């Protein structure tokens, strides 16, 4: 789905592993207590790094590989498999727009066109000011309140063009609302 968010290769010799931060290391160490095997911790580490850095750079990938002693190719294979591991930088806010069947029936394509026009971006792109990245996502499990999108950790339902305008303004004003709502 996010193939255009995947960097070409992480194995270049020129790329240096960065230092993992203290909080990243602390969280990775915690995951080690939950899974009996380092490969499972590898996927968790990718998610942890993304949570802190917004995405998984080649430098981060190398850092995890070194820290957990997992081959880079193996980590890269996993990182590119999953939709929610970003291998390219994303904007400050990530919009996950549901393009699945119930939302489609309820006219999500018009809303999506409105967002693209308003922000000047297509799927997989980030606004010039680095504020928003727009990505398609399969059914968000709120089909009875379609059309639906998620911005960062918040779900927005029964979308209309006016509602979308208000949401965008809200994030531009740094007022994201209640977490996980």
């Amino acid at each position: 789905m996010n193939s255009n968010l995947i960097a070409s290769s992480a194995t270049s010799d020129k790329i240096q592993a960065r230092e993992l931060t203290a909080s990243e290391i602390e969280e990775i160490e915690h995951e080690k207590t939950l899974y009996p095997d380092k490969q499972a911790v590898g996927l968790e580490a990718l998610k942890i790094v993304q949570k802190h850095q917004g995405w998984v750079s080649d430098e981060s990938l190398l850092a995890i590989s070194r820290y957990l002693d997992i081959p880079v190719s193996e980590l890269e294979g996993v990182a590119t498999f999953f939709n929610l591991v970003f291998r390219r930088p994303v904007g400050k806010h990530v919009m996950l727009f549901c393009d699945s069947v119930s939302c489609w029936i309820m006219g999500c394509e018009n809303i999506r066109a409105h967002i693209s026009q308003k922000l000047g971006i297509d799927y997989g792109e980030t606004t010039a000011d680095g504020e928003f990245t727009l990505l398609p996502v399969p059914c968000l499990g709120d089909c009875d309140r379609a059309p639906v999108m998620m911005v960062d950790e918040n779900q927005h339902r029964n979308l209309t063009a006016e509602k979308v305008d208000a949401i965008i303004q809200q994030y531009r004003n740094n007022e994201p609302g209640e977490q996980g709502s």
Partner: protein
Amino acid sequence: MDKPLTKNIDMSRPPLEIAQYQAAGGYESIRKIAAGLAPADVLQQVKDSGLKGRGGAGFPTGLKWSFVPMGDNAPREKYLVVNADEMEPGTFKDRLLMEGDPHLLIEGMIIAAYTIQASKAYIFLRGEYIRAEHALKKAIAEARAEGLLGSNILNTGYSLEIVLHTSAGRYICGEETALLNALEGKRANPRAKPPFPQVSGLWGKPTIVNNVETLCNLPGIISHGVTWYQGLGKGVDHGTKLFGVSGRVRSPGCWELPFGTTIREVIEEHAGGMQDGYQLKAFLPGGGSTDFLLPEHLDLALDYDVIGKAGSRLATGTMILLDDRTCPVGMVGNLMRFFSHESCGFCTPCRDGLPWIEQIFVDLEEGRGSEKDIGILEDHLGYLGPGRTFCALAPGAMAPLGSALRHFRQEFEDHLSSKGCPYTRH
């Protein structure tokens, strides 16, 4: 009418905390177990209840559990895994259960884990389900503080830890063996069966994978007994089920209803019927991987076999309605794009066939389709049908496609003659 799955759910307030949950009869099943129910006793009750898996396939839960090796010679480590990946298009039931009453799932997990004597339980939760994640984290901590999780639960000598895992996102992770690979931190390709997970699953240990809603049925069965449970349904299958409706109805939503309820009652009474100016043309009865049914099927009872005999599947029980102003070809095209993007790429017919199908739908939409293309779609029904691919994703994709080609042949033809979609989007 008893609603054991949703009785505590009121989405206008936060879910019940453990004290309120227990005051409402919660965790009674665990106290019953502690008072002297052996794993074999619990297994027998679950078998007798007739509970079938709510993840899609409808496999009898007790039978599934009975394949797990038990006794002194069984491996010391065994796992219970909750399938909370919910990514089937048009499906929105497990989200409600987890956000609305997380303790019910945890209670169900303790019952299942105890029955198979699992040493650890993982919840494989869809990454986007942030609110469910917060609710479950809080509930797990509360249950732990209350001695319902951790070591020597209520002096039974049985110990259990629950780990909440959030998925990094891919529909195929919902397939139970692919899910195990994802939990192990690998690419989520399905595994060959046998060996079945019940014998060799997570990290090679005996593992049971159950759907969220399946597990939420267990507290009622153990607390109130098999007779009570079987009295809930009004059809062939036992208990209640979450049924949902999305599409152009007056009040879309999700309701707990007994098996045997008619489709008409769900759509017309609970969902309020079609919106003004729209008529029901067809519907997928149980999510994106099921065959279309028609208005003539509205009086069928929602039971696994009844829907099966009508040529479709009850599956997740969340219906997607197609109205007369929405293009059936466009709807199926949307589903085909989903399946094509989510194919894990492991086997050739699915990896190559689905993108081809997706492209044909784009061509039909943009007026480049030909009679030959419709023939190619029909050929794929065979290439990607049951038994031809490594997992059920591809046959699932063929269900809406094959039934659409049967029921909406004219609409496909219309896309050829009008050189594009004859419907105007609204």
